């Protein structure tokens, strides 16, 4: 089995390096095929491993030493267990599809080869992230996906907005990464290792406040990668990247790394329910907060990005309340339907010459039937309608909240479920139905390549059926993750009905409201709309109170402090010496009478000193 582990892990990086060989050249079609084939190989190897883990075999290898200094020791160790293998399947499956899709999507781009190199490097980093058997190995993947995300958001680097967004994402993630590093330091100094098996066994014996501190710092790390408030602004801006990137990185895989971290550290978080409750509350808040921003946005991809943010909030609620398997289940289901939704949006973008405003579309159903149907399936799944995937996973999260008697959390998530359904179908209605407004703007939409649609179809199937395997899924992952006791059997049916009702209500409201195209622009002058369209003014606040002061302070540090104080005082000392020399130069002119004058002066001073000292000396002694 070790061989399959290495194949699954290293096939993507081989592809990336292969593509990098052609990096600076114009499009070389073989690059797309080879990288896709290698990712597919990784998928096959992961499937084999899935079979092995199902048979109860946990694969664990130690490749070699990485860092060893003093008592600190960390190897390149990889482990495939129930949680890992699920993540591996999700990552490689979505990656394969996105790779194949990208062959079509990036067809005319002159950075074709470069794109595949970055994309495969991302998959490799993600595999390292999920497969490592220690926290520092996870951190390698963590930073690796960060860099690939930076490269891919800023892929079209001639665009100012793209490179700005790339830097924003990287720097904001770095803030969280610092917290994560601190968490790792504390883990090492309190438990003597960063290996999962050691620290999970050790966690119950260490001081509770230390454990809580570790939990908080690791979670702050997770907040960065999963774009939780207040580190969320980068995700919407990250939509500057090519759409397949948004599908793979900013919906299905990388942004769920934070959730994965909490699930992975379940044995630790299980010991600190107070931190868990904080995670859940923040998750519920973000779920609602992001959903409200999606309500009014006029950018196809940003709407989906906010929806991702919102769904990540759902996952954190489940993970925080101890229902780790539910979080993982929703993570998986969400990866399928959200990637599908993004790829569909990619088709629309292609058809509309990169136009993203759904208000300028409308009636696209006629020209892009397949894309429209795929996106509707994804939206229904996202809204949580029976029998699609979202119904099973999201419903369970609401049940978890209800079961723990966290009625406020439940209520928040319940309302958000309605909002989710509403904004999803607002998008569908504006894009695909109603008046064909695109004609006024001179667009000539067309359906995407056939094989792109074929590539998307597995996701559509999974978005429909993924939920049906709930029981098998539970049995499988709870071999490792703690089970969750539901205390809701008496109200289970009622809960399902109530939740489905609000989702359906949301869908119907959206269909009714937007059946004739966009609303009148009258309400755009209202306060609520302005707040929402400006994302609660948070980006502006960051710009005004963080970015600008930093820039100004840097300038002051350089020009005022470094140049005018620190350096100037050094020069002042030097100048003093210089001037003293200059001023006293006259003494040594060689003129006999001047020299004699100074000699007399010196003699007098020395005599005076001698007398003064001897008097003083006698006074002290005598």
């Amino acid at each position: 089995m070790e061989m399959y582990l290495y194949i699954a892990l290293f096939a993507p990086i081989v592809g990336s390096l292969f593509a990098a060989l052609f990096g600076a050249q114009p499009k070389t079609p073989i690059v797309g095929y080879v990288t896709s084939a290698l990712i597919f190989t990784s998928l096959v190897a992961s499937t084999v491993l899935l079979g092995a883990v199902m048979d109860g075999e946990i694969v664990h290898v130690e490749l070699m030493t990485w860092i060893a200094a003093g008592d600190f020791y960390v190897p390149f160790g990889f482990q495939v267990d129930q949680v890992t293998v699920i993540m591996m399947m999700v990552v490689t499956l979505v990656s394969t599809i996105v790779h194949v899709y990208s062959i079509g999507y990036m067809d005319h781009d002159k950075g074709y080869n470069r794109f595949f190199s970055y994309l495969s490097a991302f998959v490799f980093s993600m595999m390292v992230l999920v497969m490592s058997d220690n926290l520092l190995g996870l951190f390698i993947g963590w930073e690796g996906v960060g860099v690939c995300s930076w490269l891919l958001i800023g892929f079209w680097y001639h665009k100012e907005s793209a490179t700005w967004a790339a830097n924003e994402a990287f720097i904001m993630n770095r803030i969280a990464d610092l917290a994560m590093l601190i968490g790792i330091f504390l883990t090492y100094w309190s438990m003597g290792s960063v290996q999962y098996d050691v620290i999970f066994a050790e966690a119950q014996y260490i001081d509770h406040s230390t454990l809580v501190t570790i939990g908080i710092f690791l979670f702050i790390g997770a907040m960065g990668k999963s774009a939780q408030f207040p580190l969320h602004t980068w995700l919407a801006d990250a939509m500057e990247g090519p759409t397949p990137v948004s599908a793979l990185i900013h919906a299905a895989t990388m942004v769920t790394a934070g959730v994965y971290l909490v699930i992975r550290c379940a044995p630790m978080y299980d010991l600190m329910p107070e931190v868990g409750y904080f995670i859940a509350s923040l998750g519920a808040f973000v779920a609602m907060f992001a959903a409200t921003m999606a309500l009014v946005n006029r950018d196809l991809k940003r709407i989906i990005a906010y929806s991702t943010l919102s769904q990540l909030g759902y996952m954190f609620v489940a993970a925080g309340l101890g229902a780790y398997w539910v979080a993982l289940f929703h993570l998986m289901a969400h990866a399928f339907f959200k990637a599908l939704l993004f790829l569909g949006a990619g088709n629309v973008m292609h058809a509309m010459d990169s136009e993203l405003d759904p208000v300028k579309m409308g009636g696209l159903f006629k020209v892009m039937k397949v894309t429209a149907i795929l996106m509707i399936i994804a939206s229904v799944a996202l809204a949580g309608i029976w029998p699609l995937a979202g119904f099973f996973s999201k419903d369970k999260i609401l049940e978890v909240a209800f079961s723990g008697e966290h009625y406020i959390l439940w209520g928040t998530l319940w309302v958000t479920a309605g909002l989710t359904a509403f904004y999803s179908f607002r998008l569908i209605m504006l894009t695909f139905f109603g008046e064909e407004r695109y004609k006024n703007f001179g667009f000539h939409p067309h359906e995407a390549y056939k094989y792109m649609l074929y590539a998307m179809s597995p996701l559509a199937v999974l978005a429909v059926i993924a939920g049906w395997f709930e029981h098998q899924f539970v049995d499988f992952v709870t071999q490792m993750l703690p089970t969750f006791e539901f205390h809701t059997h008496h109200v289970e049916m009622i809960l399902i009905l109530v939740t489905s009702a609000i989702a359906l209500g949301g869908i119907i409201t959206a269909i009714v409201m937007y059946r004739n195209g966009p609303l009148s622009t009258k309400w755009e002058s209202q306060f609520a709309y302005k707040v929402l369209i400006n994302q609660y003014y948070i980006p502006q606040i960051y710009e005004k109170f963080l970015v600008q002061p930093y820039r100004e302070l840097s300038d002051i540090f350089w020009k005022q402090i470094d140049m005018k104080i620190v350096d100037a005082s050094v020069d002042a000392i030097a100048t003093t010496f210089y001037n003293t020399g200059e001023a006293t130069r006259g003494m040594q002119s060689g003129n006999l009478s001047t020299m004699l004058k100074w000699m007399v002066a010196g003699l007098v001073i020395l005599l005076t000193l001698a007398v003064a000292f001897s008097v003083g000396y006698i006074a002290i002694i005598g």
Partner: protein
Amino acid sequence: MLEHILSILIFFPALAALLGFVVNKDSIRVYGIAVAGMEFVLALVLWGAYDPSIAGMQFMERMDLIPAFGISYLLGIDGISLFIIILAAFFTFIGIATLPNLKNIKNLIITLLFLQMTMVGVFAALDAMIFYVFWELSLVPMLYIIGAWGGEKRIYASVKFFLYTFAGSLVMLIGMLFMAFFYFQATGVWSFSILEWYRLVLPENIQLWLFVAFFFGFAIKVPMFPFHTWLPYAHGQAPTIGSVILAAILLKMGTYAFVRFSLPLFPDASVYFMFPIAILAIIMVVYTAMVAYAQKDIKQVVAYSSVSHMGIIVLGTFALNVEGISGAVFLMIAHGVVSGALFMLVGVFYDRRHTKLMSDMGGLAHIMPHYATIFGIMMMASVGLPLTINFVGEFLCLLGFYQQSHIFTLLAGTAIIVGAIYMLAAFKKVFFGNVVHEENKNLPDVNKKELFGLIPLVMIVVWLGVYPKPVLGPINNSVESIVQLMHDKAVTQEAKSVIPDLTKKVVISETIIEEVR
């Protein structure tokens, strides 16, 4: 040959430099490459012959110079100095090999070879006087390089560089004389041998004074805040080769000397000054990173980033545990490689356009994709991406200091944020966007000569990032014995508790420890 390999390493380039005066101007480049190449091979031989399982000094050579004062020609290396010597040989080699066509290139190459002598000498010396002589001699070639091949304000910059560091060194010299005097008081004989000084236990108040005296010499060299302002001038005016050697090797003299002198000689003072120095280090990290962000000249960005990274090295050194000090020594190597490479990369553009202003660049990724790629890799190494060389060092430095203070580590850890800010911002200004300057449109990408210098650096960055053991292992061994020595020598209870007891036998020197009364 192996028993005199250190002497050969020191004096071979110097002799070759003397001979260089009679070499024809046209063949001097080949001559220089050959000499530096042989020196580099010798350094590799040294590595091959080095026994990583021994923590103490190896390849020791001894010859009495002034027996009456105990001054002797004493050489030896351990895991801490070995790799800096190899790095010095390596950078001189690729530095000379990639020299662009400058005027008076013959003098430049001869100067570089002399500089190499002084660099190897500093790191191989085990006698304080020999150390001091090489330490001061290293200023002369650099003064000449900046003063003769520098930019507009080269005279000001080189004089400032010389006088500033020289002033600090004089204070250090007084400290050394006192140290020898205390040794004389305790034992009745004079000695300047560092290894014999190691055996001396000093009372805390004397340690404090001596620590401060040494500190001035080292801190200005590092350079630590607020003694750093000579550095931006020196880098700003120096030719590329000067900046590369300065950043890669010369700055490391200061931090190396902390590990070689300050920690083992004055363990109690090191503990006493740990937090004040940590505060200076944190200011270095954050403040200079912000100053770097404000720069308009790409070379100044790299120069200030050097100071910022040196802050992490100082912090790791004063973690006073094996993790931190090993990390600091490793980061010296890492930072040498990465900052050296970044200065070379800045030089690549400067040779083409004779400007270093970022406003004259922009969109270079379109025109020079290979250049952008290598720059990108080095930038990522500089911001401490895992699996690059810098991460290993930075991580261990911060990990080490975390044992001493949580909050200070958190503050110093902002290095990974502020570092990313100035680096990414600079990268964006230089490489992203559209090409706005007509002159840049037809710039050639990196040529073979430049790649000859840059590709090995990229390989080292990745190799030691993925597999640091060949370097980290020997470093770790030698650092362990230093930490143990410090623990054994510490006189105050506080210092004993701060410096970990590894319960290992000290093997640097003999076990007799004398007491000063």
